[in-house]
């Protein structure tokens, strides 16, 4: 592997994903950050390339009952159930404030039915100038009304893109689910359907028992696993998908450090999303940004683009 040798001036951490340019490859993943403009500014904005909204649905959702979060070894199970105020309220009451921050807004849209997806995208169209990209969440394992199904197969994802791509002309990302059997095939279907980028991937289906009560912790029994525990799994998925498509792929799952970011870039990520680690440290993104910059200087690498895909090795 040869990383191009450049001058020791400060490296350029900006990246491009399809038609979009972001100041940093570090994106806040969906479901972690408040839709509250006071958190979309210094000191939290330092090093942030973009912020994904909480998963939105056409209509407001109250989310799941019972316990919603449970710690596991180096991980977190969550069963939030897409609590959100709905796309309309988001567009009218929240987005205007968030957009003012200057931080690129990625709208995470949970795909329920095709009809609702179309309706939501039409609503978002009216504010397309405030939206850097729409990220279609075809992965949420907490919802039984179709959310799971779409991302499990190439066919499902093709159907979604068939309608979405017609309505939404802005940047369109698809956030895959690791529960899919053949992730590269699902990724190719998204590419063929016109996605501008893929996010690999979402939480992993797990569960927990509370030994004291002798019952499942979560009312819905299953919940999504995220955090450092899943990093080796997410990296493998990323490696597979990045090797199978030609659109940019964004890594997501368990990223905690500049090493994790570099590992994802080296296997082919164009950027990374960071989720659970923000619960551990609100300032982790600016810390990672700083150490990433230092390491790039040390390596003599001038831009993130010079790292992407340079560490894939050969599979067998």
């Amino acid at each position, binding site marked *: 592997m040869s990383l191009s040798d450049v001058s020791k001036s400060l490296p350029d951490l900006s990246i491009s994903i399809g038609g979009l340019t972001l100041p940093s490859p570090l994106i806040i993943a969906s479901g972690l950050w408040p839709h509250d403009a006071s958190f979309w500014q210094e000191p939290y904005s330092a090093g942030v390339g973009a912020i994904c909204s909480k998963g939105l649905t056409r209509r407001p959702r109250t989310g799941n*009952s019972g316990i919603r*979060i449970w710690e596991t070894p180096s991980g977190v199970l969550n069963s*939030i159930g897409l609590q959100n105020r709905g796309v309309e309220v988001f567009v009218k009451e929240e987005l205007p404030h968030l957009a003012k921050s200057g931080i690129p807004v990625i709208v995470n849209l949970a795909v329920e039915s095709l009809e609702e997806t179309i309706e939501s995208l039409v609503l978002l169209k009216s504010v397309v100038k405030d939206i850097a990209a729409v990220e279609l969440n075809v992965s949420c394992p907490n919802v039984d009304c179709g959310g799971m199904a779409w991302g499990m197969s190439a066919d499902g994802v093709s159907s979604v893109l068939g309608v979405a791509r017609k309505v939404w002309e802005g940047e369109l990302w698809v956030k895959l689910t690791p529960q899919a059997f053949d992730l590269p095939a699902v990724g190719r279907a998204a590419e063929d359907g016109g996605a501008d980028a893929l996010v690999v991937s979402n939480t992993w289906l797990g569960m927990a028992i509370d030994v004291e009560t002798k019952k499942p912790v979560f009312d819905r029994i299953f919940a999504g696993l995220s955090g450092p525990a899943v990093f080796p799994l997410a990296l493998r998925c990323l490696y597979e998908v990045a090797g199978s498509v030609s659109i940019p792929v964004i890594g997501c799952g368990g990223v905690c450090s500049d090493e994790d970011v570099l590992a994802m870039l080296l296997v082919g990520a164009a950027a990374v999303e960071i989720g659970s680690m923000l619960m551990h440290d609100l300032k982790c993104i600016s810390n990672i940004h700083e150490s990433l910059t230092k390491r790039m200087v040390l390596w003599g690498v001038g831009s993130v683009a010079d790292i992407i895909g340079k560490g894939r090795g050969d599979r067998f």
Partner: protein
Amino acid sequence: MQCSRGLEREGFLIDKAFLGGGVYSLRFETQELLPAILPGQFFMVGPHRWKSDPFLLRPFAVVDGSENGVEFLMKVVGRGTKDIVSCERGTSFRLRGPLGNGVFTATRGRSLALVAGGIGVAPLLCAWKFHSDVISSFVFGVSNRDWAGVADWASSKVSGLTVASDDGSLGCKGTAPDVLKKEGDFIDEIWACGPVPMLKAVYETFGGKSLIMASLESRMGCGIGGCHSCTVKTQRGMLKVCHDGPVFDLSEVFLDELI
């Protein structure tokens, strides 16, 4: 909740005292100045040596705060609290806070009583410090004599604290709400914190008659209203304990849905 200077800062454990009954008092010092802390507010806390396991910080109510320090009362219940109280003085911690927008606020001219169950005494000690002039009684209910050290410690901070224990082995015999009932004539407002059964008993005894403001607990991820982990069901929908609370008007809360 103020975030312009950032809520995440480093603090050092400077004092640790075992009070009995699995409860410790812990004091932290910060280099950066802390914003003003209101009664009911809390911090997410964890030593820096927690890298990925344990992964989540733990929420604790502020007992007492200053410009560069904060004090908690911590009951050991699981691996997180066990590890925290095992830390030596000088250990570096993450202190995220002060958090919470729903706090204890006194209204002029209204009579006010405080009722705490067990470790729920923590935020009420802070409330007492701010509003002792308007508080007519403060009942601290505990299970038994194991809590003697904590009760003494609390009594040293709160003049006129009434201690009650379920088995009568400490202070008066009875539950905190029972004792408060005996003590009190009409009370406009009650501030409560403790286990869910106690909150229910308070509501059954005083609901409708008094405004009951209670500090609730819930499992938390972020503490800043981002992750939707900590919600409770209320008349106004699923509200976030960390952001909309932790202090709520109990008449709004579906008590049977509290975990």
